[in-house]
């Protein structure tokens, strides 16, 4: 890897220089001030990145689906292949009237989009874009992501309940059942990797794959389980039963309009990104690239992530939707035993490697 290209090293260099500059200027508590400035800038950059990611992913989803369906997708807005269609859509959503149903539980109704969006932002904090580009390389790393992504179910249920619409209510109930049951196989499926590495820290998990991706090891089984459970966790087809257009009109977000609907949509995409990023980190070596590939780590990481994102999109536009009771059957009777089996396999693998 050529250090010259590395964004993370540049970041480290700049923050180091910032600290020196502050010290040279004689600012009191220079270390603390440098830390605050560094983290604020990182957080700001992250926010910009998240917005751009969501915009890009919505456009990508449209293009991927369109080309799978013999269409072009947006072609006109902004010139080249309709690149600014999503921006135009966001402006439209901002200008839309914000409708709250008369009999709705107004506060819960307003709160739900925030509750779904904030945890998906927090998840980005521990995502290791590059060696030195991690918001906070916490010891609990992965646990933070899973912990906060569980809050999404609360928000969807809040949205479904407060709308005072039967379709929304059923969407909310469905998602409560679904996300609670798929959380367990999701966490268990990455447990194999955690056992091998012996840490929850994202950077250590990536570094442990310097000798080879976990994808090409018995952890492949865990990877498949993770993709299945992860698809269910972000409510994408074939597990999109909380939305289920053909049954529940639009499920939990039926009564949402304008910016609040936009938040639900954005969080769906940011959650998809997080799930994909975790897959790239845990099974595909994160920012690590082969020696012959002189690309910055962040580009390598994003390429891997979008490979998974594309896989999820491919699923979405190919598969039909499962039925709600079959979905629960699958989750509890198939996926859960298999993820225990996965832990067993990983355990043997760990023993053999010693």
């Amino acid at each position, binding site marked *: 890897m050529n250090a010259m290209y590395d964004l993370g090293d540049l970041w480290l260099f700049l923050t180091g220089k910032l600290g020196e500059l502050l010290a040279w200027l004689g600012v009191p508590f220079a270390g603390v001030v440098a830390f605050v400035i560094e983290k604020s800038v990182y957080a700001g950059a992250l926010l910009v990145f998240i917005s751009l990611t969501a915009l890009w992913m919505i456009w990508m989803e449209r293009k991927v*689906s369109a080309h*799978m*369906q*013999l*269409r072009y997708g947006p072609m006109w807005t902004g010139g080249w292949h309709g690149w600014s269609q999503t921006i135009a859509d966001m402006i439209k959503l901002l200008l839309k009237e914000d409708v709250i149903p008369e009999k709705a539980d107004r506060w819960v109704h307003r709160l739900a989009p925030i509750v779904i969006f904030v945890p998906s932002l927090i998840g980005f904090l521990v995502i290791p874009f590059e060696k030195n580009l991690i918001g906070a390389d916490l010891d609990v790393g992965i646990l933070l992501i899973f912990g906060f992504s569980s809050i999404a179910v609360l928000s969807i249920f809040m949205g479904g309940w407060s709308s005072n619409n*039967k*379709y929304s209510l*059923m969407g909310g109930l469905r998602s409560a059942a679904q996300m609670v049951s798929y959380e367990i196989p999701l966490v268990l499926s990455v447990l194999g990797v955690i056992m091998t590495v012996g840490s929850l820290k994202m950077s250590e998990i990536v570094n442990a794959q310097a000798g080879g991706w976990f994808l090409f090891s018995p952890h492949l089984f865990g990877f498949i389980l993770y993709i299945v459970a992860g698809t269910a966790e972000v409510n994408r*087809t*074939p597990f*999109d*039963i909380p939305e*289920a*257009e*053909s*049954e*529940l*009109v639009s499920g939990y977000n039926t009564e949402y309009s304008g910016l609040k609907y936009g938040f639900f949509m954005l969080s769906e995409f940011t959650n998809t990104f997080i799930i994909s990023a975790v897959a790239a980190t845990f099974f595909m070596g994160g920012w690590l690239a082969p020696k012959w590939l002189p690309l910055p780590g962040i580009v390598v990481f994003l390429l891997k992530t979008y490979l998974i994102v594309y896989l999820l999109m491919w699923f979405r*536009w*190919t*598969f*039909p*939707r*499962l*039925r*709600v*009771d*079959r979905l629960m059957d699958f989750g509890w009777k198939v996926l859960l035993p298999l993820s225990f089996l996965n832990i067993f396999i990983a355990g043997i693998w760990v023993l053999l490697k010693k």
Partner: protein
Amino acid sequence: MKENPIITTDNCAEFEEMTLNMGPQHPSTHGVFHLLLKMNGETITYARPDIGYLHRGMEKLAEKRTYQANIAMSDRWDYIAAMSNNFAAVLGPEKLMKVQVPKRAEYIRVIMAELNRIASHLIFFGTYGIDIGAFTPFFYAFRDREKILDLFESVSGARLTFNYFRIGGVAQDLPADFIANTKEFIRFFRPKLKEYDTLLSQNVIFRDRTVGVGAVSAEEAVNWAWSGPNLRGSGVNFDIRKDDTYSVYSEFDFAVPTGANGDCWDRYMVRMKEMYESTVIIEQALAKIPEGEIMAKVPRVIKPPAGEIYIRIEAPKGDLGVYLISDGSVNPYRMKVRGPSFVNVAILQKILKGWKIADVVAVLGSLDIVLGEVDR
């Protein structure tokens, strides 16, 4: 102070029952169809189909219009299979007037009816995919249907409401390149059927959603007067083209696919196989089509003699019957249309009980109803 009722396991069912009005505006009711559902959780305990939102009084209008004008009206019964409706609309007056339709016109009619059957089944295939949650088949189906519509456009000038049949024949002869184009279409279309199979029919989730769902036994299907692919899906080998033949269908050799269990999967597969059989019929018709007239000698003013007739044809949706009473004037005295969708959909009040709300969509979609025909 009002006391909260205590919910126990004995009375919890009544507390949980929820009434849901599915439709008339709903993404998967295929038009303005209203289903009143009562549910315990997601399980249906009571279902009542409610129709009439698209009622345009076609039968009343028919009494005020000439027989020729009624052909144009018939386009609007089942608006995605207008050629078949034309067929039913002209057969009655022709039989009353004892018109001998020229052979070429009969062949053209059969070709059109069969092409329309494929077009109608393609719409079924696409929308059924959406009902089950797969979006992509819809676009594949419409890509292929577009080619059929191009063929229709070349003969009739219209793409949806063709008004192509005439009492005594058809409006115009085939254009010069029609036969070549149709052969080209069949060559193009047959491999696509395999593509559909890999895309949707053999998908594990799709089979999981449809096999065994909404099963209707053969006796039940006959008792509810089902017809068309729905009836054949239940294992009853009955096709009006074979069993009560009309036009020149007796001259063609084709199979009548049937299902075994009468579930959504069987009804679906019958339609997929029927598309292939339709291409077989079209191929034979194109090979055998004779030269000659396309219109019989009929008077300019159609005045069938007083009398009555009941004719029926195998429309894509099933048994399309027309009961026609003529009083000798230029307008029919009474024209009752027995739309297959109207009869097929009535069974919903019985078979939905006990299934989940997702199955409601699967079963309703598998019946392949068109509200224009249900309400007329």
